[in-house]
């Protein structure tokens, strides 16, 4: 077990190195720079700024400097927020996004899995159809539509939720639904189809023939196998929704980190592009590692060492 984890950590480091390298050179290949303005800066000013941010050095040297700092966990200063470190930007934004995303993730797991099971057990009956309709809506309607709709109906028309910002519990309703809606619907459908597949298998019939109670069959024997694909999806999903969404955070005026993923690229804020990408990558691979460990816990036939 420990050996497996160590091995995985080693491969993670290689993956992160590759991600950082590819991102670094790709972002530098796009035209324009952090000091592109709608009133072109005089050459002397641009030269001074480039010198200050080490952008006048040869690209390979900049790459080397960046990677050395990265090893020291120093993500460098932002170009667009002078004097503010990318570490601080993430430290400020992630707790906010993480809180909203975390609540959404819990809601997805706590609601999505039971709903899926329920639909599977009531296959082709009313509850199944109802869950199907709702989850189809959840998958097909984009988050910005859900968000705008919630904001308009419950915020502006009814005044039930505040108009933007995070304050009391009511202010979380909108963003959590907007950010978790798709995943909730997806998990529900995944659980349902996976559950149906498993309950159709021979060993379940055998268990039933042996007279085991219905609850025991579902929770002890069927669910474990049915959850494997669900867990596979949930891991990366947690990383994705906890790092925030540009659109949802914009609609609900949440000071999270979602916007940096998009704005940093528009602004050519090189260090922020790198910082957010690497942060997300680290989060993602950790969640994938969790998923792999969870496999072994759920299904004894999967051996981590292999």
């Amino acid at each position: 077990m420990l050996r497996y984890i160590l091995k995985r950590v080693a491969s993670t480091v290689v993956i992160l190195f590759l991600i950082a390298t590819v991102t670094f050179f790709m972002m530098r290949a796009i035209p324009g720079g952090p000091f592109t303005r709608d009133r072109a800066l005089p050459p002397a000013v641009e030269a001074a700024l480039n010198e200050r941010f080490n952008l006048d050095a040869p690209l390979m040297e900049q790459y080397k400097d960046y990677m050395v700092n990265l090893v020291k966990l120093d993500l460098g200063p932002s170009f667009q927020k002078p004097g503010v470190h990318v570490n601080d930007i993430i430290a400020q934004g992630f707790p906010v996004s993480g809180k909203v995303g975390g609540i959404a993730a819990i809601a997805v797991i706590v609601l999505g899995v039971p709903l899926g099971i329920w639909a599977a057990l009531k296959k082709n009956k009313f509850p199944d159809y109802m869950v199907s309709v709702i989850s189809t809506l959840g998958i097909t309607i984009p988050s910005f539509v859900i968000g705008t709709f919630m904001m308009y109906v419950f915020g502006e028309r009814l005044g039930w939720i505040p108009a933007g910002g995070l304050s009391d519990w009511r202010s979380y309703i909108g963003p959590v639904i907007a950010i978790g809606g798709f995943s909730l619907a997806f998990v529900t459908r995944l659980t349902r189809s996976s559950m149906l597949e498993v309950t159709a298998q021979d060993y379940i019939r055998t268990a039933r023939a042996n007279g085991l109670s219905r609850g025991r069959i579902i929770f002890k024997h069927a669910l474990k196998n049915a959850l494997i694909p669900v867990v596979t999806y949930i891991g990366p999903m947690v990383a994705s929704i906890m790092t925030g969404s540009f659109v949802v955070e914009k609609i609900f005026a949440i000071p999270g980190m979602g916007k940096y993923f998009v704005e940093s690229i528009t602004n050519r804020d090189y260090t922020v592009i790198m910082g957010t990408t690497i942060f997300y990558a680290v989060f993602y691979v950790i969640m994938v590692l969790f998923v792999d460990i969870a496999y072994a816990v759920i299904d004894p036939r999967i051996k981590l060492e292999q």
Partner: protein
Amino acid sequence: MKKILALVLALTMLAALAGCGGNGNSSSGSAPGMEGNQEKVFTYNMNVDPKTFDPGLNAAVDGSHVINNTFEGLYRDTEDGLKPAIAESHTVSEDGTVYTFTLRDGVKWSDGKPVTAGDFEFAWKRAMEPITEYGFIFAPIKNAGRVYGGEIGTDGTGEDEVGVKALDEKTLQVTLEAPCEYFLSLTAFPTLMPVRSDVVDQDGLWAKDPAKAICNGPFKLESYTMNDQAVLVKNENYWNAANVKIDKIVGKMIVEASTGLTAFRAGDLDLIDVLPREEVPQLIASGELILNPYIGTVFLTYNLTDSGNAALQDVNVRKALALAVDRESITKLVTRSGEKPATGIVPSGAFFDHNDKDFNTVSGDYGLPASGDVAKAKQLLADAGYPNGEGFPKLELFYNTSDINKSLAEAIQEMLKTNLNIEVELRNQEWATYMESLFTQNYPDMARHSWTGDYVDPQTMLEIFMTGNPLSGSGYSNPEFDKQMQIAQTTVGEEHFNALYKAQDILMADMPFLPLYYNVTPMLLSDRVEGIYASPTGKYWFGDMDLVEVTE
């Protein structure tokens, strides 16, 4: 083993989730109004987290709104025009190049120390170093342009001495390169506001830190939360504090325009100025929206360098294109946000000449009616050798990616096709890439461009067309135009404006651009706000503002 592992795993995940919940901020939702002990709180949307609140480093209008109210320069731009502020009075030498300002008695910083002429000298010299984005604004001051160009330092002597000097605690002497019509109005500009040498740092971090943000304006920074809000409170040490009626100003950083509007309708905001485009026509029709003149113009620029399309080098072709575009329809049907059809580069309602007449009105429309003139356009195109557009090359129209720019480009495409039988292809580029293409003429034919002036004098709009100025986007060059502009840059009063009128005549005869519309700044204001002033450069002044009880 398995169970323990499962438990550990579950706990870790839970802890990870819960850990993020601990320190979320509990701010926002500050109820505006006069409840409590009659505290007057004004809340507005800043739309973004401004890059900086440091007067010397700021280059954006969102930062200016804050700086214009936390700092104060020698003069102040108000509803009633330019008024002495930190300066009590000034004298100008006979040749118009030396300004001597006398500071008001008893002006203090927010920490109680006196504001001195030396603070201005320090701030100006700091802000003209070639590391700031707005140092070019000091250009009229002797040697400031050379400092910003990186030629000399601010500590030069003799010929290299920078023209700003504190003669004593209360006297500031400014030497200009040449007489300058708009210099006095510049002293009200955020970049020329004083800062304290003992608190500033290179990056301007001090200005967002309430403990360090020492200022001299009617308000001072109480708190700042990244991407959320900034709170300003009344500065009791402001020289005119007795006349400041607002106790607190909350600037929210709501990026999404429709959320801002919802918050405004819910009464959480007193002022918003970025609105969902689709709501604007209705708000204009209902009379709710206030439209202030602004010193910005949107136009198309042509590539007039050797790499450009040969057909567009013909002035008659450019005139034909300009006449074939119906600006009236563009502003009424496409942009729909109260913009005014442009017939030149200098917007109406914002610039006034020595006779106090609107510069735009005096100069007229140069035979370019707002709704165009298709017959004349066809005639001009035929004269240029392309009757009914025959043999005219296909044009490419560049724009930076956005919905409104796309609609605008499509409208122009349609008009040129219908009116002149000219094929136009559209191409868009993402903003930063686009800017580079524009300033280096890396586009074949035409590109969308907009220009916002820096100060309230028509010179700021016309200057970009001088030879070698990349901001025109076209590579346009005409020595006659340059000559008139050079006269305008070194004269004042009638002479100055006559040169500008002449320069504009030359420019419009050459038509190196295709005017589209003049921008306006919209403002949605709650009924309880009185005395707010938005200058044509788009800066708010809250110092004379009051909140009143509204009876329904």
